[in-house]
C-alpha cells in the first residue's frame, strides 16, 4: 500500500511538470513580459523606463530560460523559468501585485472557501443520492417521469440564476439571511446558510440524473433479482444492495472532487462576498494579476492529482476485490 502511494506520487511528477510548462508557455512565451507591462501600464504613452521598472519590481527582468551573464548554476537559476515556475514546486509562489505573499494569502483564505464548499459537497451528495433513490424506488411511474423532467429543467437553468434569484428571494423579499458578507466565530453561520443552500439546489438537477442512471443500471443485475426473490423488501434491496454496489461509480466521480474543495467556488464566493480562494482568483483575473492566476492553476492541478490518488485508494475501502500492488 505504502509503496503504491509512493509510486503514484512519483508518477504525478511528470504531470505537474507538464502543467508547469503549459502555464510557463502561456504566461511568458505567448506574451513577453514587455507585453504584460504595456497592458497593465496602459498601451499608449508608456515609456521604456516605466516598463523596465514594472518588470524589475516583479522580477520579470531576467532572461526566460538561460542567463548567459550569470556564473555557474546562476545561468539556470537567474531566469524567469526558475524563479517563477520551478520554485512553485517548493510552494513558493512569490508576491501578488499588491505586494502580499501569495502563499500566506492562500493559507488564510482556504478556511472560508472550505466553510462553503464542504457543506455544499456533503449536503449536495446526500440530497442528490436520496432524491435519485426515491426516483428509482418509484421507477417507471408518473412520479419518476415528473422527477426526471424536473431534473432536466433544473439542469437547464443557469447557475447565475440560482444565485441572483436566491439572493433576491431569500434575502431581499423574505429577509431570511444577509445578502452577502462574512463574519467571525458563530456569527459566520448566518452568512453561510444562503450560499450553501443555493449551492445544493444548483447541483440537484445534474447530480440526481447521474445517480439515477447509475442506480437503474445496477438494478437490472442478477443479484438484485436474487435479493427480491428471497423476499427482501424493495427498500432493503435499494439501500443494502443497490446503493452499496453503486459505490464504485459514485466514488469515481466524488472523491476526485474532495481535494479541489479547497479552491472554493468562483461564482458563489464573489456573489456572496466571501473572502475565500474563489473570490481571490476572480479578483486576480479582474486585476490581471498574473502571478496569482499562475499559482492557482498550479495548486488546482496538484489537488486534482491528489484527488485521483485518493479515488484509487477509496476503491480498496468499498470493494474488497480491489488490491493495490
Amino acid at each position: 500500500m505504502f509503496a503504491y502511494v509512493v509510486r503514484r506520487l512519483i508518477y504525478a511528477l511528470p504531470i505537474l511538470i507538464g502543467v508547469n510548462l503549459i502555464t510557463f508557455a502561456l504566461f511568458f512565451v505567448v506574451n513577453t513580459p514587455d507585453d504584460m507591462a504595456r497592458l497593465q501600464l496602459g498601451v499608449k504613452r508608456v515609456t521604456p523606463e516605466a516598463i523596465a521598472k514594472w518588470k524589475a519590481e516583479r522580477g520579470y527582468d531576467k532572461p526566460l530560460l538561460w542567463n548567459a551573464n550569470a556564473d555557474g548554476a546562476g545561468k539556470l537559476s537567474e531566469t524567469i523559468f526558475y524563479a517563477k515556475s520551478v520554485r512553485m514546486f517548493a510552494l513558493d509562489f512569490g508576491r501578488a501585485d499588491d505586494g502580499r505573499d501569495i502563499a500566506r494569502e492562500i493559507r488564510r483564505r482556504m478556511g472560508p472557501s472550505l466553510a462553503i464548499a464542504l457543506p455544499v459537497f456533503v449536503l449536495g451528495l446526500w440530497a442528490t443520492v436520496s432524491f435519485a433513490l426515491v426516483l428509482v424506488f418509484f421507477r417507471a411511474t408518473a412520479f419518476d417521469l415528473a422527477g426526471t423532467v424536473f431534473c432536466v429543467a433544473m439542469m437547464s437553468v443557469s447557475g447565475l440564476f440560482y444565485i441572483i434569484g436566491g439572493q433576491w428571494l431569500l434575502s431581499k423579499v423574505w429577509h431570511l439571511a444577509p445578502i452577502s458578507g462574512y463574519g467571525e466565530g458563530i456569527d459566520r453561520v448566518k452568512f453561510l446558510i444562503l450560499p450553501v443552500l443555493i449551492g445544493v439546489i444548483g447541483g440537484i438537477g445534474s447530480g440526481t440524473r447521474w445517480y439515477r442512471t447509475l442506480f437503474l443500471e445496477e438494478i437490472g443485475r442478477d443479484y438484485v433479482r436474487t435479493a427480491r426473490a428471497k423476499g427482501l423488501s424493495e427498500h432493503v434491496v435499494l439501500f443494502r444492495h443497490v446503493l452499496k454496489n453503486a459505490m464504485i461509480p459514485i466514488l469515481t466521480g466524488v472523491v476526485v472532487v474532495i481535494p479541489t474543495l479547497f479552491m472554493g467556488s468562483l461564482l458563489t464566493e464573489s456573489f456572496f462576498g466571501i473572502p475565500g480562494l474563489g473570490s481571490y482568483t476572480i479578483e486576480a483575473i479582474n486585476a490581471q494579476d498574473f502571478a496569482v492566476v499562475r499559482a492557482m492553476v498550479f495548486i488546482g492541478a496538484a489537488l486534482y492529482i491528489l484527488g485521483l490518488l485518493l479515488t484509487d485508494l477509496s476503491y480498496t475501502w468499498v470493494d474488497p476485490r480491489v488490491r493495490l500492488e
Partner: protein
Amino acid sequence: MIEFKPVLLWSDILLFVLLGLTLSGAYASWRSEPMRRQWQRLGRNAAGMAAAMVLSFFIVVGVLDSLHYRARLPAQGDTAPVYGVEVLSVLDALLMPLKTNSEKTYSAPLAMRLFAKEAVEGEVGRDFPRLRYGGAHLGDDEENHGWDVAVQVLGGLGASMAIWLALAWRLRGGGPGRAAVRWSLLLLCLAAGPTIALAAHYHVLGTDKVGQDVLYLALKSIRTGLLIGTLTTLVTLPLAVLLGILAGYAGGWLDDAIQYVYTTLNSIPGVLLIAAAVLMMQVVIDTHPDWFSTAAERADARLLALCFILGMTSWTGLARLLRGETLKLRELDYVQAAQAFGVSRRAIMLRHILPNVSHIVLIALVMDFSSLVLAEAVLSYVGIGVDPTTISFGTMINAARMELAREPMVWWSLVAAFSFMFALVLAANLFADAVRDAFDPRAAQ
C-alpha cells in the same frame, strides 16, 4: 433599395462551414440503411422533435444574425460610394425599429412612460416622462393604453393562429413525433404572434439602463450562444477523434504520449485554464490593435479565440472515451480479420473504427452544446468571456446584475436573458437526450 456591401466575418464563415458539414453528414448518414433507422427513431421521439422545433427557431435567428453587411451611406455628391462603419446583419435589418428606437433609460415592459421620475419641461416638479417610441401612436390618449395592448395581442394571436392552422393542416397525421412538431409550432406561434404585433408599437420586454430594447438584445444574444456552443466543436472534434482513436489503436509510446497530454490538460481546473488562456489572449489582442480594421472584427476575433480555448480545454473527455472504445473494438473479429487481410492501419482506423465510434462522437457533441451555452454566461460574468461589446446572455446578465437590488426593482433584463437562455438550453438538453436514445446501441435494447 438599400445598397450594401456584404461582410463575411470569420465566425460567419466557420458557422456556414459547420452548417454545411452537418447537413452533408446528415445526408450521408440518411443514405445508409441502419443510420436511417436511427434517424427515424429520433423522428418518433415526441420530446426530441418538439425540442428540435424550438432549436430550429433559435438556429434561424442565429443564421439571420450571421449574414452581415455594411450599409451604404447617403451619397455626398458624386463621390465613390461610402459604406457605414457599423457591421449590421439581416436580423438587424428586420429588427431595425427595435434597434434604433432607444429610450433615455429604463422603462418597464409595454410601458408608455419612463421608469424613473425626471424634471419634465413645462411642468412644476418631477414626473415620469413619456417615452419617445413606446406607445407613441396613441399620442396623449393614455387611457386607452390597456385597451390598445389587448387589441394588439388579439390581432397577433389571430394572425398566428391562422398561420398555425395552415401549417398544422400541412403536417397532419403521422406518429407522436409529428404531433409534437404541431404542438411545439403552436407554442412558438402563440409566443411570436402577440410579440411581433406588440413590438411594432411598444418595448415588449422593456428597455435597459441606456434605453436599448431588451427584446432586441435577447434576440441578438442567441447568435453568440449558438456560436460558442457549435464552433467549439470544430476544435474538439478533430483533436478528440484523431488522438483518441490513434491512442487506442496504435498503443505503445504513442498511447502513453497522448494519455500524458490529456491527463495534464485535464488536471488543470477548467475555469482556471480558460482564465489563464483568455487573459493571455487579451494581451495579444490589446497589444496588436492594427490587426483589426473594425470593432466588429476585434470582437469577432475574441469570440473565435474563446471558442478555440474552450475547445482546447474540453476535447480531453471525448478523447478518453474514444480511446477506451477503440481498445474494445480493436480486439473484435472484424478488425482482426481486416488486419489479417493486410489492410493498412490507416484504412482500418478510417473504415472500421471511425464509423463504429461515430455515435459516441455525435452524442458527446450534442451533450456538450448546452453546457457550453451555460458556460458562456458564467465566463462573461467573471470577465473572461466574450468581448464586452458583443451582445450575449452573459454580458446582458453582467450589465443587469445590480438591478434587482434597485428600489423599485428592475427585473425585465434579467428575466429576459434567463428565460431565453433557459428555453435554448432546455431544448438542447431534451434534444441531446433524444439523440442519445436514438443512437446509443445500449439504449436501443
